[in-house]
Structures are given as C-alpha cells and as structure tokens.
C-alpha cells in the first residue's frame, strides 16, 4: 500500500495533460468538421444534395434547441414545433404581401427604417412589409422565446409529465390557430411569396448555396451557445434540476426561473430556425409544424444523445439524410433486386414511407438499450489507478475552510423557531415546536423514527410549508420563502437519503452548491468575458479547497461521476455541496448514516472542526456517541412534539426521553439511550 499522502498532487499532475490531449483532439475534430462542412458545396455541386444537407442543418438547429429543454433541463416538450411555426410566421408575415394595411403617416418611420415600403396599388397606397431576414433572425428568436415563457409559465408548478401534455396541447393549438386565422396567415393554403434574404443588395433567390452557408452559420452559432451554456453556472443549474429538483432548490437554484429560461432558450433556437426555414422555402403552411415534426425532433435528440450537443447534431443530420438520401437509395437498390428476382412487391417498395415506423423503432430501442444515445453527453471517466484507489487517507489535520464567518453569539440567535406546526392532512407532523439555536452552536435533534425530525428540516429549508409559527434566521423571518431564497440567505442542508445529482461529477455537484453565490447570467455564460472566467476559476478553486478537507477521498475523484463513488464518499460530496454555499447555518440530516465506526469518527471530528471555525450546525443523528461528542444542546422530538431539550447528559437521563425510545415500561435507571 502506498504510504504517500501526496496522491492528490500526483493526480493533479496527470489530469492536465490528459485534459490537454482531449482538448486538442476535440479542437482537431471540430476543425475537420468545419472544413468538410464549408467545402461540401464546392465538392458536390448537386443542388439537390446541397438542399438536402441545408434542410438537415435546419433540423440540427431545432434539435439543439430541444436538447436544451429535454436534454439539459429534463423537461419533456412535445409541442416544440409550435415555436418553429411562430418563428417561421414571424418572418413570413413581415416579409411578404400577406398583410397590406392602408398607408398612413404612422408607417413613415418604419419605412425610413426599411421595415416597410409604401406601394401604390391602383389608387390606394398600401404598406408592404419588408423586414430584413437578418433582423428577423434575432427578432423571431425573441418572439418565440416570449411564447416559450408564456406557454411554459402555467405548467411549471406541475409535474414534468403534465408539462409534456400541456406542451402537446399548445403544439396542437398553434397550427389550428394558424389554419383558422386566415387573414393573418392565409390559412391552410399557406403563406406565399415570402421574400428571400438579401446580402449586400443581392437577393439569395432560389440559389441554394447561400442558404447552405447561412444554415452552417446558424448551426455553428447554436452549437457554440449550447456548449457555453452547458459548461456554465446556467447549464449546471439546468442539469441539477433535471437530476433532482428538490436538491437543486435547496442548493439555491430557482426552479421556476431556470425552467422558464430553458423553455425560452429552446424556443428561441426554434424561432430563429423557423425564420431560416421559411426564407429558404419562401412558403409556409400549417402542416409543416404539426405534432409529427415535434416527435421527429425528439427522435433526433434521443438518437444522438439527450444532453449531448454534438450528439443531437449528428442525430438530426443522420435522420434527415436517412429520409432524403439513404432510404430512397436503398429503395432503388431493392427495386433492382426486385426486377432481378421478379418480385413486384420489392419493385415498388418505398422505404421512405416507413420513416415514422423507423422513428418509433428508434425511440423504443434507444430507450430500452442505449438511453444515452449514440454520442453520450457524459463521457466515461477513466478509472482511478491502483495507487489512487488504495491511497491511504492522510491523518485529518483539522477542517480548514475560509469564508466561515464567526457570528456574534451574544446578539440574536442564529435560528429561532417558534410555535411551528406542520400538518399533512390529519397527521400532525410538528406540533407547535420551539427551538432556539444560538449563533455558533451545535444543536442535535434526536427522536424515534417518524417523530418529525426530517419534517423540521424541510420546514426550515422551505420544502414544506408550515401551518403556523415563525422561523427567524438571525432575526429575519424566513417562513414563506422558497427553498432557493432560504438557501441564498444562508441555510444549507444535506438529506437523509442522499440527494446528489447523479449524472454529474463531484466537481459539478459541489459547484452547484455555490449557485446562489455566483452571478453569471445566460449572456455572460455565452460570452465568457474575463469576469465570468475569473468567477468560474474561483468557484472551482473553492470546490477543491472544500473537498480537499476530506484528504484524498474526494480530490482525486473530482472529475468522476458521483454515481461511481462509495456511499460514504457520496455523503461527503453532499456535505461539501452544502458547505460550498457559504452557509451561516448547516443542517445535517443523519450525516453518518451508513458509515462504519472509523468513518463516523472521522466525520464527527470534521463537523466538530467546522463548529470550531464558528459555523452554526443543526444535526439529526441516531448515533448517540456522535451526538454527545458534537452537540451543546440536544432537542428530542416525539410524535411531532418537543419532549425534552438540554445538555446531552441531561437528556440522556430524562425519563420521558427514555420512554419515547425504550417504551413505557423501561426502567428509568437502565442502560440509557446510548446503549
């Protein structure tokens, strides 16, 4: 067994060169893809082929948008084509002869901006909308995003599967409105004569190559934006709410805000693509945006890999080309074979007709056998080396963590719970409970199973609403605030049954703990200016500082998926995540559950160290030796009522406590509850 304790540093040495290799390989790959994409029209001059690829790219753009909603944020949107329609009709209506209101001076400024033209038809002057394609791209993205928020908002309180059905409903309503509102959209006949884009006074017309390059540009932009968002505070928040919404909210993620942001962002991608698509086609009918289109885009991202930016692009392009190239090609081979063997059925087969059957089969097979898709979002991490696996854990040198503020214990209490009652239907989970936690103190909450301990934590962190009572954090009322707001105010917690973000790495899990302390917004995440980079770097350093306290248990595994960790290490990650939020009060719900005695001792010592640094801690614990070791005050709950409170040794002798734990007939003087 390696007796060195410097494993952390050697691991840190190996990771950078691996990462550098990976980075360069990725760069080379991207370069290769870009060269192929740019050279394609020059190599293959067939307009039909270029058109097919341009269409495939449009669907890749759509897939990138849906990937943000379904892949990143885990919200199933089945009406995604509605936003495609909204983007398409935005440009279609504002760049065609569909609407021709009578001219008045109201339109003069718009004419000056080149958004409309005054056209004389016969005797009357009318307005002709001539919105530029280049303005329409961001404009339709914005309008679609607005509708994304509008459609998403009513559903956010609901379970995810209701969201699917409501989006499906909106996906139905939008084409019906388009079909029936003929004065605006020309109904089922479709918009006609949509103006093609112009660049430097040259119209694209029906020449396909310029459209192809615009499509390449849009897809490249959206890949860039998706990647930047994914690797930022924003993307982490989405994935956190996807993996465990409850844990995400207590880590400071505002669920409503981030769900809406995902919806708006996905819709914006679709809106922009809609404008491109209709400019290329120069016509739009309601049928182009029906449910099957939404499903097709879903199939694309499932095939490519939910959450995988490059995967969904590959999935979309493959499925589109399957329809326009591969299936017709295979069909014509089969026709030849059919001719040879004289089979009329083979001579007439059209595999492209079976595309939806293929979609169905792809969905089912991918879900059953390869849920991560062809190009999974989460690359498998290399296993730790033998030395890393077996590294001896260095002696704990005391928990060191900057940023813990030693609160003044003489003034207001850190947490003052007064008369809190929680009721679930007929069951009273907490009955007028009063607990005062002094600043810098450690309070242990004990009690039999079902006594309301976890409910107490849930009501403090805003997960459960109280029927009555008051909870003050350093004098400030926090009852009624959402979990993310309470997290921001400085209460962090762990859960009895571990709630980690199981698809993310140790680093990302702990980074999400810092969510409320960071400020990068979507724009900042995309632009990644120096301020944002610095914030991200500091956040990562902070994570390493925190997990470094657990010796080399976590640090070498920072880039490992948490699902690969041992149970005790997962507990340590959860505690690290809570500490990362710079809490003023730390709530630990059975932190040592499932740990062996050595690990329990080690963790108890670390909690003690945190206490010495000045952190206020409330801990639910069953192991009485841990309680005695840690707590200044022990609160005993039974059937939702506080039955005792005092120093650990007092509580041990309290008769009511013994009765609650050992039953009515237990002798007061017997073994005691620690036994």
């Amino acid at each position, binding site marked *: 067994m390696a007796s060195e304790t410097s494993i952390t540093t050697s691991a840190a040495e190996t990771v950078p060169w691996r990462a550098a290799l990976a980075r360069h390989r990725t760069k080379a790959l991207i370069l290769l893809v870009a060269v192929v994409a740019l050279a394609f029209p020059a190599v293959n001059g067939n307009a039909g082929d270029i058109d097919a690829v341009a269409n495939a790219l449009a669907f890749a753009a759509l897939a990138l948008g849906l990937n943000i909603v379904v892949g990143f944020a885990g919200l199933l949107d089945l009406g995604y084509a509605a936003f495609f329609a909204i983007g398409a009709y935005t440009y279609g209506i504002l760049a065609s002869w569909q609407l021709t209101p009578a001219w008045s001076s109201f339109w003069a400024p718009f004419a000056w901006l080149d958004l409309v033209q005054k056209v004389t038809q016969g005797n009357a002057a009318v307005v002709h909308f001539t919105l530029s394609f280049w303005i329409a791209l961001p404009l339709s993205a914005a309008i679609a995003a607005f509708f994304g928020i509008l459609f998403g908002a009513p559903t956010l309180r609901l379970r995810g599967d209701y969201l699917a059905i409501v989006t499906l409903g909106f996906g139905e309503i939008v084409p019906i409105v388009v079909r029936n509102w003929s004065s605006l959209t020309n109904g089922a006949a479709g918009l006609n004569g949509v103006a093609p884009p112009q660049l430097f006074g040259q119209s694209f017309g029906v020449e396909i190559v310029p459209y192809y390059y615009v499509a390449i540009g849009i897809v490249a932009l959206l890949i860039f934006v998706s990647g930047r968002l994914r690797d930022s505070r924003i993307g982490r928040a989405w994935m956190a709410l996807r993996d465990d919404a409850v844990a995400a909210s207590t880590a400071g993620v505002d669920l409503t805000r981030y769900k809406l942001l995902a919806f708006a962002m996905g819709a914006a991608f679709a809106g922009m693509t809609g404008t491109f698509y209709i400019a290329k086609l120069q016509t739009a009918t309601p049928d182009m945006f029906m449910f099957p289109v939404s499903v097709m885009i879903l199939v694309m991202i499932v095939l490519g890999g939910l959450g995988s930016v490059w995967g969904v692009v590959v999935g979309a392009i493959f499925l589109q080309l399957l329809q326009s190239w591969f299936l017709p090609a295979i069909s014509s081979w089969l026709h030849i074979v059919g001719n040879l063997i004289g089979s009329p059925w083979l001579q007439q087969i059209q595999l492209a007709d079976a595309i939806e059957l293929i979609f169905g089969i792809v969905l*089912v097979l991918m879900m059953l056998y390869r849920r991560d898709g062809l190009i999974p979002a989460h690359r498998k991490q290399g296993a730790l080396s033998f030395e890393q696996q077996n590294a001896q854990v260095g002696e704990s040198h005391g928990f060191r963590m900057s940023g813990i503020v030693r609160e003044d214990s003489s003034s207001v209490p850190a947490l003052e719970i007064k008369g809190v009652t929680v009721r679930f239907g007929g069951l009273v989970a907490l009955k007028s409970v009063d607990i005062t936690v002094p600043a810098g103190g450690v309070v242990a909450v004990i009690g039999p199973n079902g006594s309301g301990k976890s409910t107490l934590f849930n009501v403090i962190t805003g997960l459960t609403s109280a029927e009555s009572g008051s909870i003050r954090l350093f004098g400030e009322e926090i009852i009624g605030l959402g979990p993310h707001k309470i997290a921001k105010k400085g209460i962090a917690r762990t859960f009895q049954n571990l709630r980690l973000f199981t698809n993310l790495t140790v680093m990302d899990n702990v980074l999400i703990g810092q969510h409320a302390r960071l400020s990068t917004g979507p724009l900042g995440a995309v632009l990644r200016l120096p301020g944002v980079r610095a914030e991200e770097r500091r956040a990562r350093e902070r994570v390493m500082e925190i997990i470094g306290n657990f010796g080399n248990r976590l640090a070498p595994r920072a880039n490992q998926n948490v699902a690969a960790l041992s149970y005790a290490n997962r507990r340590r990650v959860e505690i690290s995540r809570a500490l990362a939020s710079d809490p003023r009060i730390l709530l630990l719900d059975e932190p040592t559950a499932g740990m062996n005695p050595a690990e329990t001792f080690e963790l108890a010592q670390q909690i003690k160290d945190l206490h010495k640094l000045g952190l206020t801690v409330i801990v639910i614990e069953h192991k009485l030796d841990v309680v005695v070791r840690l707590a200044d005050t022990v609160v005993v709950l039974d059937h939702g009522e506080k039955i005792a409170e005092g120093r650990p040794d007092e509580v041990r002798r309290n008769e009511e406590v013994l009765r609650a734990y050992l039953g009515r007939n237990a002798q007061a003087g017997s073994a005691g509850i620690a036994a």
Partner: protein
Amino acid sequence: MSPTALFVQQVINGLSLGGMYALLALGFTLIYGILELINFAHFSVFLWGSFIGMWTLEAFGLNGQSVVLTGLPLIGVLVAAFVASMLFCGILGVVIERYSLRPLRNVTGPMAMITTIGVSYILFNVILLGAGADTKNFPNPLPELRFHILGATLDLRVILIWIVSGALMLGLWFFVQRSRLGKAMRATAQDPDAARMMGVDVDRVILIAFFAGSALAGAAGLIFGLYYNFTSYIIGYTAGLRAFTAAVLGGIGNVPGAMLGGLIIGLIESLGGQFIAVKWTDVIIFSILVLVLVFRPTGLLGTLAPSKS
C-alpha cells in the same frame, strides 16, 4: 330543427361520444394511477381496437352498411366484435407493458413516456403501412330504428353505445371496488412498496391494469367505428388527446373522474361544434386542459397531489 331539438340532439350525440371518451380515459387513468405514466401507446391501442373490430365484422360477411341484421345474429356478431377487439387490445397492452415498459420501471425522467410515444408510432404505422391511408368504410349491421325525443332523433346505434359503455364502466367500477384484485390495484396505486410488502404481486397488478385499460380502449375503438361509420389510421391521435383531457379534467388516477370527464368532453365537443364552430373544438378542449392543470391540477374529483415527489 328548433334550437331545443338541436340542443337535445347534441346532448344525445355528446353522451355517445362521452361514453367513448370515458372508456378511453379510463385506460389513461388506471395506468397513471399506478405508474404515474402518461401512456401514449394508448392512442394506438384504441386505433387497433377500431381496426380489429372492423375486420371481425367483415369476417362475418358484413360490408359497409349494406347488410342489416336483427335479433340473435345481430347480438352474436356484435358480441364477437367487442370480444375480439377487447381481447386483442388487452393482450396488446400486456405485451407493451411487459416488453417495453417494465424494463424502464425504475428509470427516472421522461424515459418511459418517450418509449410509449415510440410504441404508439410503431403501432399506428403498422396500420398505416398495412391497411393504407384511405378512410375505411366501417361495417354497421344495425337496423334503422329511431325514436324521437323533443324533435331530436335517438337511434339504435346511440342506445347500443350507451348500453355497452355504461355496462363496461359499471363492470370496471365493480372490479376496482369489489374484487380482491381491484383492492390490490387500489393499494398499489396508493403505495406500491407498501402493497408489495403486504404480499401484493405488483407486477401482476400492473399487467392487469394494462389489460383492463387496453381492453376498454379496444371497445372504444369499435364504438368509434360504429358511431361514425368510418375508421382510419389517424383516429387515435385526436380521440386519444381528447380522452386524456377527459382523464385530467375528472382527476387523473380517479376512476369515476375519468367517466365524468369523458362525458363532459363529449358534450363539449358536440355542443361546442354545434354552437361555436367545429374548427375551434380542439382549441376549446386544450384550453380546458391547460386551465384545469393550472387552476385545479387534481381535476374535478381527484385528490391526488399534483406533485408528490
């Protein structure tokens, strides 16, 4: 027709459609109640019920509306068609559960729902590719027998639909409330783990729920054909969405709620089509869906929490 007669006529029509939607909604509600899964495959099971019913009737030599039967032959043919549709769909539902959903039972997220979309696509495309995209003339052996109420017509077809859907709903109600399996089903819906610990074979209960729900969808598919005199590969989607709305409206997971919701959606469709405009029917129904979900996610009769985690 006078406005009253029109109204009565549309109520009659609405109750017939409502019976069909209620049968279909029951399948959604049974499966959602236990698995918390929106089963999109249900749409296509309904479609298959319609086609199996049609093929069974055709197997008896019926073609379109040309052959009219009475008495025992009529009853025999109808019973055969209902049994065939329901049995086939019931088994189809069991196969879907066993081979495409059970492997995903413990996978979180929208995975199972995405799978049901895939299954639904496969099922309806098999019909589309096998039977073609044209609208099929649905055999209807019922004799012309009409009653007049307040100027409206009540024909044998409607009465038959009322009797069949009413009987099936009653049957399901008794099954869920009175039988031992029904009790196991309710227990599983409330808490699968506790039910399992009490000796309930949860896998079997789920299979039974799929069988029962899918069999009712099969009956609804046959009723669709008898009511409209046609069927087509596209019917599953619209009817399925409306029935799902019915289930949500009544309170998803709630058996009487699905029945009530189905009747309400049927009435909205017929009365709304008459007095507003057919082209807005779906907009009205989906608006109801959204409003219910926003303001009363538990539905009219439901008590299920909208977000139990």
